[in-house]
């Protein structure tokens, strides 16, 4: 083929892109493995048991889950439409699931069942317990009903201030619930736990029943590190005193403790993420491909 200038030209159709070929190859590989697996099971007559027990819908579910997993993984190579589809499905399904679950686990048993127990028992929850105080339940459930309505007023074009009242109540109740337990468990108990002996001893009883006390080196190290760590980190957050001299050095030590803590937290997070990836691979290899 020649152009007007007489130069040789090639076909102008776009060549298939590399990553498209890659995904087609991977999909073909996956399908081939599955076909081989089924063929091998059929040949050996071992298709019963696990293979036969696996229903069609289970198989479809495994394939959908596997393809969705690969679709999400595909983002690591490059942003692509398959990833976008998988991401949108995940978000949509999650939102819908949570909405339905909240309706059936909260609104129906906690509100509708108290407003109209007979109706709910007849049509929705036959196992709903019969309350000894239905009138009291009905009256009390009007409170969350009204407050819920006020909260939804936020979506109305006018009078959005009405939604502030239930929010205020949520904040007040939450603070009330938490303040005493936080004081006891997060404040007083933590202070008590910090008061460790700097020189620790362990005690044991010998054959004659005599108590023997011995120096606990690592217990002492733990006590010293704990106390020094708490004091130095608290000093770092002491902003009303300029961080100079002894205060500055202690605050500097506090930064070291904080950095080590952040490093430990990051390491634990990495471990969690690796576990999630390992579990996905386990699923792909075992459930989908059956090769591990």
């Amino acid at each position: 083929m020649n152009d007007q200038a007489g130069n040789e030209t090639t076909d102008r159709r776009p060549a298939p892109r590399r990553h498209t070929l890659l995904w087609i190859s991977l999909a073909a590989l996956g399908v081939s493995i599955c076909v081989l697996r089924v063929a091998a099971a059929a040949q050996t007559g071992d298709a019963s048991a696990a293979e036969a027990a696996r229903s069609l819908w289970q198989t479809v579910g495994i394939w959908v889950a596997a393809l969705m997993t690969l679709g999400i993984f595909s983002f690591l190579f490059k942003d692509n439409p398959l990833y976008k589809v998988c991401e949108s499905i995940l978000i949509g399904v999650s939102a819908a699931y949570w909405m339905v679950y909240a309706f059936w686990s909260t609104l129906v048993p906690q509100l509708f069942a108290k407003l109209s127990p007979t109706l709910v028992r007849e049509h929705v929850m036959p196992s709903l317990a019969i309350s000894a105080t239905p009138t009291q339940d009905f009256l009390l459930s009007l409170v969350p009903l009204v407050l819920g309505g006020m909260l939804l007023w936020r979506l109305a074009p006018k009078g959005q201030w009405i939604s502030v009242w239930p929010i205020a109540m949520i904040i007040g109740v939450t603070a009330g619930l938490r303040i005493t337990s936080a004081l006891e468990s997060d404040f007083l108990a933590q202070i008590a736990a910090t008061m460790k002996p700097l020189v620790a001893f362990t005690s044991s009883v010998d054959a004659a029943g005599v108590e023997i006390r011995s120096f606990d080196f690592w217990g002492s190290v733990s006590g010293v590190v704990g106390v020094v760590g708490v004091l130095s980190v608290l000093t770092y957050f002491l902003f009303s005193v300029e961080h100079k001299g002894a205060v500055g050095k202690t605050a500097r030590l506090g930064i070291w403790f904080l950095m080590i803590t952040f490093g430990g937290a990051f390491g634990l997070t990495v471990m969690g993420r690796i576990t999630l990836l390992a579990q996905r691979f386990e699923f792909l290899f075992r459930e989908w491909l059956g090769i591990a």
Partner: protein
Amino acid sequence: MTNEAQTTKARGFIGVLTRLDRRWIFLAMGLSIAVPILLKLRFPEYPGPMAKATFNAIEAVPEGSTILISFDYDPASAAELQPMASALVHHCASRRLKMVFTALWPLGKQQADRTIETVLKPFHPEYKEGVDYVQLGFQAGNEGVIKLLATNLPKQYPNDASGEAIENLPLLEGVEDLGAFKLIASVSAGYPGAKEWVLYGNGAMPDAFSVVAGSTGVQVGQLLPYYPQQLEGILVAVKGAAEYETLVEEKYPAPDSTVIGQGRVRMGPQLVAHLLMIGLIILGNVAMIAGRPRGGAR
């Protein structure tokens, strides 16, 4: 080879490192996890003090006592937490403890069901629902659920998850509040979870029961301050699960090690992936230091 040639070669290597497409790192990380799974790599686990403390706390509960296990996670965290939940239920059933299952997370109930189906029923068929274990399921209300459980359990859970009234369940006969349990175990992925059990359960009844927790790696930083005073034991992420599985397997071998052994299986990929990460961090730092202009601004 002359010094100049060596420098040129080093620069070439550093140049490759600094220009390396990050997708090669993704591929290396993928392989570092996939290959150990395919080769079924397992390494010995040496239980640490927190796993031992959790094991000992359960061992200290008198045989036949009732304990509460709260499944405060969902499938998103199951990779880390299901191994420890399975080992925990097997351990408690092996000690003939009676178990009450609850969930502060909506999908925790399904995780508890799964554990009952895969661990309790096949390994401990003698356990009867309502007599030896009760599945109470999920209740909305976060820490409010624990608050009410601490004062009036039948009011919070008038029925079990199957709809049976709790007065008809022999295991919960006479149970009024959390004080009836000798131990509370929360397998927890975040809020609400183990922290809330410490604050509102242990806080309300400090001497009534022990609390132990299994936690994701992300969340455990919030729980460590409570150990060992308010939390007797913590299982830290999949490493804690693997250590705990080792302790449980030593004393109470399970008929199927693929169920009580998931944590140890997942530690193989952990080791290889961590070695890769350490190597990459060292290489990255070498490349950064070698790439600095000599005598220039830093």
